[in-house]
């Protein structure tokens, strides 16, 4: 029984496609993760810290080419308005709400992997049932 299980799991893991877990942080493209706003940088300011105009200038110097057009406009708009912080529209993906939109319900690119996992599990379940039933009959 243990050997059979070990064989089944090894066979499963041999398939390269099956070795890919669908952790969103690993399989998402950078745009989806919002890394183009340097959120993942360890040396950056702590979460919750306010961005200032100086930060914006720094961002503009270093990452202007990476930023999507609408976000750059957003930065400029906040500077023009005279606010010392930039403001994002409610319900929109940005560097502060990345965690929210990186949940499975919002990441449609992993739904295919969910189906894949479900099918593999169903096949494995059937295989385990058949093999364990066969082994039990043989023991009798």
């Amino acid at each position, binding site marked *: 029984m243990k050997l059979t299980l070990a064989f089944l799991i090894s066979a499963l893991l041999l398939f390269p496609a099956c070795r890919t877990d669908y952790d969103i942080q690993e399989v998402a493209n950078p745009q989806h993760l919002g890394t183009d706003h340097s959120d993942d940088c360890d040396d950056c300011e702590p979460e919750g810290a306010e961005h200032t105009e100086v930060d914006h200038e720094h961002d503009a110097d270093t990452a202007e080419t990476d930023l999507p057009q609408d976000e750059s406009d957003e930065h400029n708009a906040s500077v023009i308005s005279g606010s010392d912080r930039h403001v994002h529209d409610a319900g929109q993906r940005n560097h502060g709400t990345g965690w*929210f939109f990186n949940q499975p319900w919002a990441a449609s690119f992993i739904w295919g992997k969910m189906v894949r996992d479900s099918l593999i599990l169903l096949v494995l379940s059937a295989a385990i049932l058949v093999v364990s039933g066969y082994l039990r009959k043989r023991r009798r």
Partner: protein
Amino acid sequence: MKPVITFALMTLRNLLRRRTIWGISIVILIALFGIGQIPSYGVSNEGRFILDFGLFGLEIGALLLAIGLASNIYPRDKEKKTVMPVIAVPLSRGQYLMGRFLGAAIVEAAAMLVGCVGLMVILVMNGHNVPVDMLPATGLLLVEGWFLLAVVFFFSFWTSPPLNAPLTVLLFIVSQMSVAGFVKLFPQAPDLMRTLRLILPHMDVFHIKDPIAHGIDIPGMYFFLAMLYGLAYMAFMLSLALAVFRNRDLK
């Protein structure tokens, strides 16, 4: 199928006679009532907090129910020797497991439904709207609860009840972790940890309280896929449980 249903109904009556289920259900309702009493401190749309905490409470309730319902079923049957006559003639081991599981799953579904209705009542009493996706969200938590129920059955066939609960809670906790977070638990063997994580489910699939609390629509297809995912994991755990049970010597 008829013997399984008959045995499931027998299990259902058996479980309803026990105090555990009533105790856990009352605790869930008291917790929901307490969540409804949290002051808003002037924050607008206080309903978000009630909904968020309430659905989290239902998830923890599903875990407690799974442990409370299933961890003692097989050990008690074995101790009282009732499992012997049951599987001697009328039921196969598979039918025994399915009957017991179905009975417990019905009780869990009823308890979750009561919890969901309780949360809806609390939202209405506090003057908030009940989101449209409230029932589907509870449905996903129920599927998660059924998966945990299957896990508890699996552990109950080869561990003692006191060990069953911590093992299930441990699995519940690690299943919430990301791959990177899980690998960090034992960074010396990243490949082994990645393989282990691959086998464990991603519980975040069942968590949709954030978009519901913020009024974001969720595609209907997602509910279907998440249900399929949870039910597939449940089937996998049940087949593992049956494989272990078939190997058990009941004498």
